[in-house]
């Protein structure tokens, strides 16, 4: 009987450890899934965002100075090509996230050599052997993830807002055959 009590105690502690570690490890994935559900839209589809305000309840801590563009990607059917023509002197950046919320790539306008954004995202170990020299290759550790553009905008300047909206429309994502 005493042996069983010890075993039961061990099982309880084991359960505690599993619950604790599991929660810490997978909680970010749950939050990411929640964000995906709230933002909506199909995978590998560009979603244009407006200027955040108090009604923007999709992602915590939105920056009201930024207009966002998001795309939940899925590389199961092959690499994706992300392209855009971004002629803006304002700050902008493009960031890639794993489903565990880790930001594994970020690059801003000053780090790109040209207004023409041309990225190829592939699953780990599946980068194409040959690509045009103006294409930047990005290897993703995970098949799924998020692409997030941030465009700094002067929210009180309608022309600036409209200009960024036009630029956002140039963003495209398509599968590479």
């Amino acid at each position, binding site marked *: 009987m005493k042996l*069983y009590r010890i*075993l*039961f105690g061990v*099982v*309880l*502690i*084991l*359960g*505690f*450890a*599993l*619950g*604790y*570690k*599991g*929660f*810490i*490890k997978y*909680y*970010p994935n749950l*939050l*990411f899934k929640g*964000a995906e559900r709230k933002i909506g839209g199909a995978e590998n589809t560009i979603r244009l965002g407006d200027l*955040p*305000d*108090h009604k*923007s*309840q999709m*992602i*915590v*801590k*939105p*920056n*009201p*100075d930024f207009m966002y563009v998001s795309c939940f990607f899925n590389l199961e059917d092959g690499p994706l090509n992300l392209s855009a023509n971004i002629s803006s002197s304002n*700050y902008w*950046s493009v*960031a890639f*996230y794993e489903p*565990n*919320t*880790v*930001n*594994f790539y*970020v690059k*801003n306008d*000053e780090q790109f050599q040209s207004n023409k954004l041309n990225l190829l995202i592939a699953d780990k170990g599946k980068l194409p052997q040959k690509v045009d020299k103006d294409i930047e290759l990005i290897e993703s550790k995970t098949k799924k993830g*998020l692409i*997030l553009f941030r465009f*700094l905008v*002067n929210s*009180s300047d309608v022309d600036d807002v409209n200009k960024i909206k036009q630029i956002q429309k140039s963003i495209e994502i398509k599968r590479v055959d």
Partner: protein
Amino acid sequence: MKKSLIAFLLLFAGMLIGGFWANFKINQVGKDNDLILKNGVWGYFPTMDLATNEFQKAYIGRIGLLALQDSEVIYFVASSDQEGDPLSSSNDYKLTGSSFDARYWSFTLYGEDHFLIPNDKGVFSYNMENIVYKDSLKNSYELIISKDPKKENWLPAGEANRMSVLLRLYNPAKYVYENKDAIELPTLKKIN
């Protein structure tokens, strides 16, 4: 059979308790651990390398999902005033500071739920471009956080029981990265 059932139930109970404890510990970040370092009223993470710190990743997910890595931006957050009292819209605060050596910087006010605080003016933040400076060199400034309208640099506090101010420094100078604990950050004083 009965003992197997007990073992299963204990395992399940243990997992539940472990999950609740992890959730509790995440809520305690900033209160009783050294995950967040301080510079005045401003808290910051020594690193934003979330790939190597699962606990920090879980916490950041809760308060700032989809944060960027250090190479792009440094975040400082203040949720209490100079006296150590939590920020609340039942008080007014004066944030006094000077410009930062960064490509873009801003102050944004958030409610307890980490979302923007509703207000009639639709003002949620000030940045290096739209803040009104006190001097012609565009260096020093004062922001007033209050639920009541102010003449300029007014960050409306709405009806927030608890608030926090997030300072974002995009592409800061190298010395800022190296001196997060020592660079001059704004003071945040209760004024009534």
